C-alpha cells in the first residue's frame, strides 16, 4: 500500500485498480446491452442506466466534474428527450 499522501479518504491502490477494472467491464457490458436491446422504450431505460454507469466510471477515474455532467445529460436530459419523442411517434401511429 504505497500511497503518497494519506488523507481520511485515501483508498488503497489495489482496491482502486480493482474498482476501476470492475467499472470498465460494467460500462462495456452496459454499452453492449444498449445496442442489443431492440425495443425503443427499453433501450432508452438501458441508456439511462448506462449513463449512470459512465458517471461512476468518470468518478473512479477522479473526474467528478465530468461525472456531474454525465449524470445530468446522459442519465436525465437525453432519456427525457428520447422518451418524449417516442411518445409523440407512438401517438401518431395510433
Amino acid at each position: 500500500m504505497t500511497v503518497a499522501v494519506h488523507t481520511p479518504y485515501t483508498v488503497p491502490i489495489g482496491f482502486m485498480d480493482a474498482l476501476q477494472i470492475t467499472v470498465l467491464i460494467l460500462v462495456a457490458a452496459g454499452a453492449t446491452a444498449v445496442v442489443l436491446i431492440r425495443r425503443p422504450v427499453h433501450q432508452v431505460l438501458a441508456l439511462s442506466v448506462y449513463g449512470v454507469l459512465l458517471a461512476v466510471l468518470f468518478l473512479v477515474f477522479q473526474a467528478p466534474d465530468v461525472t456531474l455532467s454525465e449524470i445530468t445529460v446522459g442519465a436525465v436530459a437525453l432519456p427525457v428527450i428520447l422518451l418524449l419523442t417516442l411518445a409523440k411517434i407512438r401517438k401518431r401511429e395510433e
Partner: protein
Amino acid sequence: MTPAQRRWVFGVAVAGLAAFYLWGLSGLPGFGNYPGPYGFVILHLAVKQTFATGIVSAVNFEYRGFDTVGEEFILFTAAAGTAVVLRVLRGERERSAVDEAADRDVPPTSGAVRMVALLFTGPVVVVGWWLTSHAQTNPSGGFQGGVVLATALILVYLAGEFLVFNRFSPVALTDAVEALGAGGFAAIGVAAVPLGLAYLSNYLPLGQFAGAVSSSGTIALISFFVGLEVGAAFILITGELLEQTLLIRQGDG
C-alpha cells in the same frame, strides 16, 4: 453490387480501420502518464491566480472562457432551432390543454409517481442551485446546475400536468431568462474591454480566501449566468417536446 462484393469492401474497410486504430493506440502515452505541461502549470497557478478551488471551473470560465461562450451559444441555437422545427405546421392544429372529452377517463398519474416527484422537487431545486452557485469552490458549475434546475420542472410535470408545467415556466419568461443567461455571459466578457483588458478577463475583486463562495471574481458570476441559460434552454426544449406530444394533432383546427 453483389453481397459477396459488399462483404469484401466491408472487410477491407474494417482491416484498414483496425490497422490505423492499433497504430494510433500504440502511440498513446501509458495509462495515467500525462505528458503535456499545461495540466501541471494550471494546477500550480490556478488557485493563486483566480482564488477558485474548483479548478475545472476556473479553466472553463476563465482560462478558456472564450470556448465556453461558444458552447453556450451552441445550446442557445439548439433551443431556438427546436422551437422553430417544432412549431405548429400547416395541416396540424393545437388542441386545448384541457381535456376535451369530459366523459372519457384520462389514465390518472399513479400516486407513487406523484409522491416521489413531489418529494424530489424541493431537494432537486436546492441541489441545482448549490451546483450553480459553487462552481468556484468544488466540482460543479452552471452547466450541471442548470440541467438539474430544469429537472425540477420535469418533476413538476410528472407530479401534476402539462398545464402546471406551463404555469411554472411560461414560454415568454423562459425565453427571457435564456436570453439573459446567454447575454449576461457575453456582457461580462465585453465589460472587460472598456477597462483596457482582454475579452473575458477577470476584472472583479477575487475575494480574500481561495475557496470561499464569494471569491474568484467573474468565475462565480459567469457560472450563475450559465446556469440560467442552460436551465432555461433545457426547459424550453422539454416544453416544446411536451407540447408536440400532448397538444399538437394532425388535421386543421
